[in-house]
């Protein structure tokens, strides 16, 4: 079982916030810009970044087995370059929005004929981190038009809707109060461009969905199961909000 941890700190319920539904922030700042100098230094140096342990493991998985990823896709440095910037994306085969983890698992089941990785398993996070790292520095650019549009609109509403015992929407903190303090933390704009990221609180690499569940836990809302459409679609909306920010995977966060 994955502990989601208490991340979206309590105490903001009394703030009484107005909402700007779905409006992308005027100036996008990556979460790493809100981090302290020590965390920034760990992310900047691959030798220290513990997330690189997962990337190394992902590289080994990439080349592992008789029908390895590398058998079709070859060198990930070229074939997987830019893949992370356009996910989540609409999948015509699955008839839903899929994130990078879903995409990897679909390939694993349909092409490699192996059992899917469990969501949030170390192997899936490792392979996702490895694939995402190939897009490092590239600006996020997801497609929210066409078949993905209804999902995008649902997620935009989710983002702006108050929920949980704290009665907070995502936007209450990450739009209305980004940059302000919540106890010891500075509230970030809540972009997902560092994920899969090594969170010091988790002492492991985790997916963006794990982070989203941690935030929902923090506002005492009901938790959708890992891999639920509502979370995947929220990932799509977050990626749209983060348009233009560079992929940082594996990021390092508090």
């Amino acid at each position, binding site marked *: 079982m994955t502990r989601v941890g208490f991340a979206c700190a309590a105490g903001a319920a009394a703030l009484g916030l107005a909402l700007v539904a779905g409006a992308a922030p005027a100036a996008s700042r990556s979460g790493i810009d809100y981090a302290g100098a020590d965390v920034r230094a760990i992310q900047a140096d691959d*030798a*220290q970044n*513990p997330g690189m*342990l997962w990337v*190394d493991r992902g590289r080994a998985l990439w080349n592992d087995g008789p029908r390895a990823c590398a058998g079709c896709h070859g060198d990930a440095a070229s074939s997987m370059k830019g893949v992370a910037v356009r996910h989540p994306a609409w999948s015509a085969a699955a008839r839903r929005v899929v994130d990078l983890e879903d995409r990897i698992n679909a390939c694993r089941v349909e092409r490699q004929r192996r059992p899917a990785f469990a969501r949030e398993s170390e192997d899936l996070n490792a392979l996702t981190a490895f694939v995402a790292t190939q897009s490092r520095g590239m600006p996020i650019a997801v497609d929210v038009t066409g078949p993905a549009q209804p999902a995008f609109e649902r997620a935009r509403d989710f983002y702006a809707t108050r929920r949980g015992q704290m009665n907070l929407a995502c936007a209450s903190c990450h739009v209305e109060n980004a940059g302000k303090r919540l106890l010891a933390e500075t509230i970030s704009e809540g972009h997902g461009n560092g994920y899969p990221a090594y969170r010091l609180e988790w*002492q*492991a690499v985790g997916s963006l969905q794990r982070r989203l569940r941690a935030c929902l836990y923090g506002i005492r809302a009901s938790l959708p199961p890992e891999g639920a459409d509502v979370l995947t679609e929220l990932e799509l909306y977050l990626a749209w909000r983060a348009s233009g920010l560079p992929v940082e995977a594996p990021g390092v966060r508090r």
Partner: protein
Amino acid sequence: MAFARIQLPPSVKRGDAVEVRVSIRHPMETGFRVDDDGRTIARNTLKSLTCRYGDREVLRASLGSGIAANPYLRFHITAVASGDLVFEWIDDAGERGDARAALVVAG
């Protein structure tokens, strides 16, 4: 599957001080935490970590519960000759691991 990372300079000269950096995937469980059901999580830290360079042991460390998960160590050795740096470790649960990296010494 090895879950450790050793980083060395790509090439060094004989007599140089070489910075060795190693990080190891390990939960470094302190034994003081409890799980969601209130049961104590058993202590599991890296009991011993050694590094051999050629036929010499160049590092021996006992990492206890004061070291965070996924320990990262940095130390210096003197480059003598080309050869493997071999790390071996054992944790409180008795699980062993090892990793190696080749040091290339020119001249």
